[in-house]
């Protein structure tokens, strides 16, 4: 074969390779009629309590929007993959979502440790990532934030707030922490430590951790009792939170209980029983049943589409809170949807209120959309609002 023939052949080969790409739409995961969104969630294992209702709620909310005609004529499609709350599986899932399922954006992904594990990959592939469900602290000072939009609270700031609130309003003098031994629990613990350091008359007298896989926590309960703390702060899964509270009650150790918003779902009343009375918790959107009509209406819509969601009301509306800003961004982008146009549109959100999430602000310098929380108290199977919004500084 002479050189010319070879070159011709090479040209044909290259053309054959390139040709299919030419016919494709410009943006991955977007067609004229559909936008594909992916998420990796714990549908099994220790955090299925969160993952199952949250992913089902996002799916139900997408269905609601699709039934109303979609956004600029495009329907939303959610691809959910189970990671069992295990970071290595979250990495594999995320790669699959991006490379095989070719999603336009990643929505959420649950677990601070999991999010941390996939962070570099998502940034490298320049994939839009909406509200990774991770303490927003892991993004502090992070520069490559163009495609990441967080509307999730900071566990460190929450830890500080919980400690300060307890000291000022609940006569707390000595604090102990029960936390999950991973990034989620450790960030919460760090927050409590910072809170204690800022206060003069409060001491951290003990801390007890558990592993997500632990079936029981009797030794931790005994250890916490020995600290004699007057207040216990919880950074746990609902199962472990309920277990520790019950075990301590068995030992007649009943400190004031203060908890992260992660345990706000009313299902806790069923799991922990009367031991969940008088627990103080934060919230970063108005929880259902606390007098916010829009949130209650959102829950009613979700429950109509998927009746199982009524069993897990807080996590269900949480699912809506996580994607609302993204959906608004899609609306503002208009019919010509590209990644960069979406980013520009999202950055126009200023103190924007959704059905569930409130006060979202993004700008080119600020991708931490929300920075506030309020205090709740558990009373007779219901949550009562105790304070107005408290704002903390943004770092991302």
């Amino acid at each position: 074969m002479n050189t010319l023939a070879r070159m011709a052949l090479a040209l044909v080969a290259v053309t054959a390779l390139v040709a299919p790409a030419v016919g494709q739409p410009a943006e991955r995961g977007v067609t004229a009629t559909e936008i594909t969104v992916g998420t990796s969630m714990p549908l099994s294992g220790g955090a299925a309590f969160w993952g199952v209702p949250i992913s089902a709620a996002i799916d139900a909310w997408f269905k609601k929007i699709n039934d109303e005609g979609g956004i600029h004529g495009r329907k939303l499609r959610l691809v959910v993959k189970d990671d069992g709350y295990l970071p290595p599986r979250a990495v594999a899932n995320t790669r699959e979502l991006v490379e095989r399922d070719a999603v336009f954006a990643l929505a959420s992904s649950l677990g601070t440790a999991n999010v941390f594990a996939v962070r570099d990959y998502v940034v490298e592939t320049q994939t839009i990532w909406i509200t990774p469900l991770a303490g927003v602290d892991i993004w502090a000072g992070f520069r490559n934030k163009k495609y990441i939009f967080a509307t999730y609270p900071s566990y460190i700031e929450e830890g500080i707030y919980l400690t300060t609130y307890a000291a000022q309003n609940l006569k707390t003098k000595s604090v102990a922490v029960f936390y999950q031994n991973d990034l989620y629990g450790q960030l919460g613990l760090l927050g409590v430590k910072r809170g204690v350091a800022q206060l003069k008359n409060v001491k951290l007298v003990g801390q007890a951790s558990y592993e997500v896989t632990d079936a029981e926590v009797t030794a931790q309960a005994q250890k916490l009792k020995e600290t004699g703390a007057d207040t216990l702060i919880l950074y746990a899964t609902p199962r472990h939170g309920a277990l520790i509270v019950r075990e301590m009650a068995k030992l007649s150790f009943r400190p004031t209980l203060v908890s992260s918003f992660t345990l706000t779902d009313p299902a806790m009343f069923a799991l922990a029983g009367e031991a969940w009375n008088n627990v103080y918790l934060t919230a970063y959107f108005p929880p259902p049943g606390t007098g916010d009509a829009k949130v209650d209406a959102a829950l009613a819509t979700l429950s109509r589409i998927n009746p199982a969601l009524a069993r897990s009301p807080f996590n269900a509306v949480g699912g809506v809170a996580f994607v609302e800003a993204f959906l608004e961004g899609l609306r503002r982008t208009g019919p010509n949807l590209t990644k960069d146009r979406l980013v520009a549109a999202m950055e126009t959100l200023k103190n924007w209120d959704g059905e569930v999430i409130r006060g979202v602000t993004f700008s080119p310098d600020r991708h931490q959309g929300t920075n506030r929380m309020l205090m709740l108290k558990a009373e007779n199977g219901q949550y009562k609002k105790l304070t107005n919004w408290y704002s903390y500084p943004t770092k991302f």
Partner: protein
Amino acid sequence: MTQLGQYLVGGLATGSLYALVALGIVLLYRSSRVLNFAHGDVATLATFVAFTLLGRAVPFSIAVTASLAAAAVLGAAFFFLILRPAKEATLLGKIVMTLGLALVLSGVMQLVWGADEHVFPSPLSDTRVYKLGQVVVSQMSLGTIVSGLVLMGILYVLIQRTKVGLAMRAVAQNTVAAQALGIPARRIYALTWGLASALGGAAGVLLAPVVYLDPFMMLDPFLKGFAAAVLGGIDSLPGAVLGGFLLGVAESVFAGYVSFKFKTTLAFGIIILVLMIRPEGVLGREYHRRV
């Protein structure tokens, strides 16, 4: 002293569950050399059966009996319908089949009952406590320890004092010889699978009120039961019981005095240590390799 007492009580309650799980694993291993990875999932499924019946106002004793029967039927069915037809499968192949069963059962449970936690009602109270000096024991922990011991006693009598038990031991020692003597080996195998599964189910029903019921409830207790079986001697029934209690107490005391963070690791540290020093386990028969 109070502290130690409290850790011991907690350890014994957990240990009795480990022992029950370990007994099921050992029972099967002795007879068929198969490590049953579906043991935990069969137990969880049985617990869900009890949970569903209790939700329909069936009395506790009937619901639990029915759930144990369901576990036994499932175990025996797995032997008859899957393991036995696959006669040519190697031991490893059979073990992989149990792994497959575990995945199938886990999926079915998630589909039917969902992945969220359920409160499992129990006639024993977890908050009603008795005091032995300064040491606190809940009615539930006491019930767990006692039920565990009673079940172990029944199993002992069944295996050591009855004809069926003798047949089980004979089949476990030498299947061909046992068959030649007229023992229906297949039926004995099925019985062993059923019995082991029912034991697991009992552990599940005892555990569920304490740790909440979900499809993954037995994940950790199964691994610990397996560790306990290795610790005690994987072919020794008394070894399984001893291993269970030893591991339960060791974990609890270790978590209390040394570290929570390495509590889970402890079980596997112990396995490695045992395999190095006494590979046959504390009460296992010495392992001879035929040349």
